[in-house]
């Protein structure tokens, strides 16, 4: 039966709602996880008063942001100052749309792909969105008309150009093995325990490091570096505009974590699940659960690293990007190409 347009629209809307809900929910609760884990790592408690174990803290924070006075300093360039939070937030949400969070699921008499958009350039789309995200930071830094903000904006543009290269190159190995830019084909090629993490450890290392730099997370959070730049590019922002920068950072983190899982850790694949005699629906749900679990682990890794490693100096950051990650990523490409030629992969 050919599905009607109405049902397709409803399906698409449901998927969009699900993914945005998931990302936004993740963003909300990552702030809580971050503060709690930071507390545990630093041998203190973290927010634990609002609701059970502090679980309502993000809601309280959100309300506080909404009701705070929105101050626009008189010396800013208004059009860009107002535009910048949107420019950084929208691409961070869009990036998550091409990530497959499960195999196709059979519901109401038809197969539903658990992915908002199955683009044939999926991975490139994510890179494009992360490239667009830079402008939010750069414009926020420039339009604030403040030395600290400007330095933050400059640092972020330099950092993002440098690490985009390493990130793009480290993924090439995976794409060579898969032979496709579609992310669900990347996942399908990693059935069982054929995870790319085992065959391409150098690429994985480069990708993870570059992802930390691309999301502006410690130890690479030079653009906002509070010990040198007050708060970097968002020094002049207050209330919900400031919150949008934070939300974009966490949304980017979620996309990056999901991408690590998709490219290197088998996405929604659960080894040995096909042998267990389960109904198709149960299998699908377990796969979605496995994807979310793996992503949650990498999100935890982001937090863990932030509260463990000290920040780099800016020249060290550039050295690492250009002199270590870039050649290593190239090396991974050569190794992968050699293995493919010899028929080992």
């Amino acid at each position: 039966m050919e599905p009607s347009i109405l049902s397709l629209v409803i399906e698409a809307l449901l998927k969009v709602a699900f993914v945005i809900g998931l990302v936004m929910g993740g963003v909300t609760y990552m702030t809580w996880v971050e503060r709690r884990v930071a507390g545990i790592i630093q041998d203190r408690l973290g927010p634990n008063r609002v609701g059970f174990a502090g679980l309502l803290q993000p809601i309280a924070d959100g309300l506080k942001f909404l009701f705070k006075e929105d101050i626009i300093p008189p010396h800013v360039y208004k059009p860009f100052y107002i535009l910048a939070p949107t420019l950084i937030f929208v691409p961070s949400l869009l990036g998550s749309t091409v990530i497959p969070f499960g195999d196709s699921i059979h519901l109401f008499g038809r197969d539903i792909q658990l992915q908002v958009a199955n683009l044939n350039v999926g991975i490139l789309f994510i890179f494009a969105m992360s490239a667009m995200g830079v402008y939010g930071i750069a414009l926020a830094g420039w339009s604030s008309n403040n030395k600290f903000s400007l330095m933050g904006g400059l640092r972020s543009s330099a950092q993002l150009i440098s690490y985009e290269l390493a990130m793009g190159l480290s993924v090439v190995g995976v794409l060579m093995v898969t032979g496709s830019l579609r992310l669900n084909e990347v996942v399908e090629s990693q059935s069982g325990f054929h995870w790319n993490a085992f065959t391409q450890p150098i690429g994985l290392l480069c990708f993870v490091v570059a992802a930390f730099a691309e999301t502006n997370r410690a130890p690479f959070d030079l653009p906002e570096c509070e010990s040198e730049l007050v708060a970097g590019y968002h020094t002049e922002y207050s209330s919900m505009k400031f919150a949008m920068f934070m939300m974009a950072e966490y949304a980017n983190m979620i996309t990056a974590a999901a991408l690590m899982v998709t490219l290197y850790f088998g996405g929604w694949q659960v080894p040995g699940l096909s042998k267990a005699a389960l109904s198709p629906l149960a299998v699908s749900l377990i796969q979605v659960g496995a994807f979310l679990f793996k992503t949650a682990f990498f999100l935890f890794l982001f937090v863990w690293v932030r509260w463990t490693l000290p920040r780099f100096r800016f020249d060290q950051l550039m050295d690492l990007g250009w002199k270590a990650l870039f050649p290593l990523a190239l090396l991974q490409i050569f190794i992968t190409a050699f293995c493919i030629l010899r028929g080992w992969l």
Partner: protein
Amino acid sequence: MLVINLIAFVAIFSALMVVFHRSPMVSVVFLIVNLVCIALFFLFLHAQFLFAIQIIVYAGAIMVLFVFVVMLLNLRKEEELLPGWRVQRALAYLGGPLLVGALWTALWRRGRSSEAFPGSFGSGFGTAEDIGQLLFNDYLFQFEAASVLLVVAMIGAVVLARRKES
């Protein structure tokens, strides 16, 4: 169709703003908008690969460099117009109409002939597979020659920019 017209309008508007706005930063941002519009045209032509590459390379990497330079110079006072060279002005008056004329002729010709593109694009035009075939099979030599040229230019830039070790 409506969407395409809208994008075309935005593209032309942003291109004009690049030229006419006085603040260099605003010009750069409108140039980004313009390049994104062109990427969207690629998307509507089903050339998804070109769309992604256009955004990553032009609207992303190259324009970040522009933004970077404008921010570094931070020319607020540049808003007062610099008087250009006389030669520059003369060339502008000459070159502008010539370019418009050339484009107009090209569009005119294209409008009249029904077969606008003799080597018509296949259905896979602009996908990663098709461009890979073109670059690495059909035009391998030209592609490699261009990349060697770029590498040479890059090495030259590095040599020029390197500080003298004293």
